Structures are given as structure tokens and as C-alpha cells.
């Protein structure tokens, strides 16, 4: 079965620190890859997605992610986090069914 693994369940950073959240998936065929963010009390929002072309994709709010096919990875990065980035982040894979990882909670200390 398809699986999506997010390695970090809870990350705590200070403002201006750099962020990298890991995501690995297990499906070997063609996939679309996504990162979603859920702010406290709100619904899921799309940060960025990859489906073809340049493996480095840029999303909203300064986030980017790199698709490395050989590693089945799609890690999320941001060079300098802000307090307002405090949220839960979900990696997702669409291989026909749309699967989500278990999420990473990010706390950014002001």
C-alpha cells in the first residue's frame, strides 16, 4: 500500500532559523506531490505542489520543496521562519488515491 512518512512529528525553532521538514513516500509510479499547511483552528491550505518539470518547486509564503525521485523524497524548506509559520504541515501524495502523512507540528518561538 502507498505510504507517506513524515520523519519529524514536532519541531521547535526560533524565528529566523532555517526549516527543513522531511517527507518520503513509497509508491514507485507517477505521483503528484503536495505540501499542505493547517494553522490552528483553520482548514488545510495548499503550500505547493509538484507534478512534472523542475524538481525544485516554490510555493506561497517563501516555502519551497525539492523532489528527489531516487530518494522518493519531497522535503519542505524555508530559509528563515517566522512566528506566523507556527502550524501543522502535511505532505501528501496522489498516485490515484490521495494519501497524507501524519503531519509535523512546527512551533516557532518569537
Amino acid at each position, binding site marked *: *500500500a502507498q505510504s507517506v512518512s*513524515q520523519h519529524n*512529528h514536532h519541531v521547535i525553532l526560533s524565528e529566523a532559523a532555517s526549516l527543513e521538514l522531511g517527507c518520503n513516500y513509497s509508491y514507485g509510479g*507517477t*505521483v*503528484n506531490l*503536495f505540501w499542505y499547511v493547517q494553522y490552528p483552528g483553520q*482548514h*488545510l491550505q*495548499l503550500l505547493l*505542489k509538484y*507534478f*512534472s518539470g523542475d524538481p525544485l518547486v516554490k510555493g506561497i509564503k517563501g516555502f519551497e520543496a525539492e523532489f528527489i525521485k531516487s530518494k522518493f523524497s519531497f522535503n519542505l524548506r524555508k530559509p528563515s521562519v517566522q512566528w506566523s509559520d507556527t502550524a501543522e504541515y*502535511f505532505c*501528501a501524495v*496522489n*498516485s*490515484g*488515491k*490521495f*494519501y*497524507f*502523512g*501524519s*503531519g509535523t507540528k512546527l512551533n516557532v518561538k518569537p
Partner: protein
Amino acid sequence: DVKVTQSSRYLVKRTGEKVFLECVQDMDHENMFWYRQDPGLGLRLIYFSYDVKMKEKGDIPEGYSVSREKKERFSLILESASTNQTSMYLCASIPGRATDGNTIYFGEGSWLTVV
């Protein structure tokens, strides 16, 4: 704008009751999904439908069934509700084929408490 509507936002049901969660989307999407979201577990796929009357099991189908009689409507049924089915249930839809690069659209969610 795509709209995915879950008719019930908050429900409280008793153990053993049959529960229906309804979802309607207005953009003629082929694919519809039901997830449950629990703290620390993310979104887990319960069932998926890629066409009318077609369905596939997700990761956690036990205790649930679904119905898709019309393209725009995808219902989740809890045959006999149990306390471990207390959760937030999310309906979603997506157009086209899996690898078209389309994103998924979510409903507002239904908070179900089983007592």
C-alpha cells in the same frame, strides 16, 4: 470557486447508532474521498470513489461504508457507531486523472462525537 459541502458540521451520536455523513461537490469532479483526521495521525483515507457507483477502500475502511449514487454526492455511513469513531471527518474531491497535477479540495469537516 470549487465548493465541497458537508451538510453536518457537528454531530453527537450514541454508540450503536447508524450515522450518515453527506458530502456534495459542485464542480463535476470525478474523484471523491473521505478521510478522518486525528491528532498525531494526520489524515487517514477511509474510502475513495473515482466514479458513480465505484468505490475503493482506503487504509481504514473497517466500520464504514460509502455510497455514490450521483456524481456530485458521496456519503459516508457508519453502520454502528462506536466511541473510537469519534473524530473529524473530511470530505474532498479532485478533478481528472490522478497525475494531472490537480489539487484536492476539502469540505469544512464534520466533527462527530460518539458517546
